[in-house]
């Protein structure tokens, strides 16, 4: 048995989980400092990086810390001094790190973090949904969501390139287990990143106060500048898209050209949903998907161009609504919103097929939970 399907492209093909693909991308990015605390399902990323450092494959300082809060504090400090930095976490780890996520964003320091997106307890659950990474929305980070191990690889490299131009930290989201632990074919593309650049560096001997106490005026200005620059980072993401896999920038438009019905989703489960869309297309239903590759900056322009019938399928909620449903509606779009797949609850092609069919038949409530 032989096929030629995966022979395209120039890079070496390897079977990698998204965790492993991210570690390979980080190796190519040559970070100076990595600090992390293990947590399921992220741990294999930093275990692989620790092995690379130990074997000499990667010339970086791997700082073993006692908590995620310290992990982010360490990379914050290292980034202040001009180091290219990386960390990774999930779920409760991100929750524990949360305070420092605000510090590094507010300090306008470039940094890259992988988040293997996992439910947050209670009840205890190690499986996939988007609850954890969505909590970063207000902190001032760029938030990308990959769909495949290949995209996780490409987006991690793009994260360094973008973060270091716009001086905003960048989180790369991958779905727990269905991506983090699922091995797929990845082309190791040889990306060459520019030298580390950033807005400022603090080096020994410099006499400068960093993040001294501010009154409202300075804090307001800092927050405004960050919000504006985060919006503007869309231009850098779009401009560099071609160097990192050509996915379409902030969004991927799947069979949307002539669509009357649009589904808005993000993350690793979009592949199953696309297969369901193909089934409906075969039946003559004009349906397509707007896949949000980025949650911040939010792809408002693409959302506003959607046809009038929009279904947003969320893997994280705020109150009774889905978070992306709320975000999409905030762009002035009328949406139907379904919350599904919380805590790793499997949502397969048949489930999406039935859900999208109900949507097309006009039988969905304004907000529903797929329980």
């Amino acid at each position, binding site marked *: 048995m032989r096929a*030629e399907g995966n022979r395209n492209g120039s890079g070496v093909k390897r079977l990698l989980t998204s965790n492993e693909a991210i570690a390979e991308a980080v190796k190519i990015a040559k970070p100076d400092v990595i600090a992390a605390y293990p947590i399921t399902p992220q741990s294999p990323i930093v275990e692989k990086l620790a092995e690379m450092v130990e074997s000499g494959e990667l010339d970086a300082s791997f700082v073993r810390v006692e908590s995620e809060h310290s992990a982010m504090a360490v990379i914050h400090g290292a980034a202040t001094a001009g180091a290219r930095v990386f960390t990774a976490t999930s779920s409760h780890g991100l929750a524990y790190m949360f305070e420092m996520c605000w510090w590094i964003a507010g300090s306008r320091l470039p940094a890259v973090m992988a988040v293997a997106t996992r439910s947050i307890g209670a009840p205890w659950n190690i499986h996939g949904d988007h609850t954890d990474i969505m909590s970063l929305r207000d902190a001032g980070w760029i938030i990308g969501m990959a769909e495949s191990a290949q995209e996780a690889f490409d987006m991690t490299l793009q994260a360094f390139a973008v973060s270091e131009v716009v001086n905003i930290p960048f989180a790369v989201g991958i779905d727990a287990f269905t991506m983090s632990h699922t091995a797929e074919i990845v082309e190791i593309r040889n990306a060459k990143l520019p030298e580390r650049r950033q807005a400022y560096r603090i080096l020994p001997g410099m006499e400068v106060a960093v993040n001294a106490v501010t009154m409202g005026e300075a804090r307001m200005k800092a927050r405004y500048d960050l919000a504006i620059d985060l919006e503007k980072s869309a231009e850098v993401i779009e401009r560099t898209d071609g160097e990192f896999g050509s996915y379409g920038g902030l969004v991927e438009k799947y069979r949307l050209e002539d669509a009357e019905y649009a589904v808005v989703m993000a993350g690793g489960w979009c592949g199953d949903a696309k297969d369901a869309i193909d089934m409906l297309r075969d039946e003559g239903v004009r349906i397509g998907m707007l896949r949000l590759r980025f949650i911040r900056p939010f792809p408002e322009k693409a959302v506003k161009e959607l046809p009038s019938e929009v279904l947003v399928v969320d893997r994280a909620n705020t109150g009774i609504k889905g978070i992306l449903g709320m975000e999409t509606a905030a762009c002035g779009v009328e949406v139907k919103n379904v919350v599904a797949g919380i805590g790793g609850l499997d949502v397969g092609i048949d489930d999406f097929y039935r859900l999208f069919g109900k949507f097309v038949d006009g039988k969905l409530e304004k907000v529903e939970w797929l329980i």
Partner: protein
Amino acid sequence: MLTEVTIYCRGGQGGVTAARVLATAAMLQGYYSQAMPQFGPERRGARVNTYLRISDRPIRRRSVIKNPDIVAVFDRKIEIDSEASVVILNSPEPVQIPSRTYYVNATEIAERHGLVNAGWAILSAPMSGAIARVLDIEISALKEAMHIELGERAERSFKAAKEAYEVIKWT
């Protein structure tokens, strides 16, 4: 064409490794492939499923396999609750079930090649050999895949895999 395989095994028997070796072997033959462990409590001896997909087109789906084309059973004590048309069994003798059944005494092969750890025969090598045969994966691709995935453990494992590849029988 997409082929979906579900491996029924127990934690520690090598089901995840087998799926990875086979996915790599398929990749080496030009196919798209995916190896996905089932994600439950990582408990030795607990029953777990592992999923393997092979296709000549990119694989986008990442949900669990609900209707596998092939089921590979590492432990005969596990109930086969699937209507898969092909079943590959670790068993010393044929078993009468409605599916087209292949059988190989993977435990005996593993033990004879010293593939035992803490009281458990590690079945990834012989079972990946058996499954590779049913999937029509070439033995050379399996060998290379084992070297990629297992490193220095590949040599001994390949001998066991090759034996299973050659002796697997159907009923």
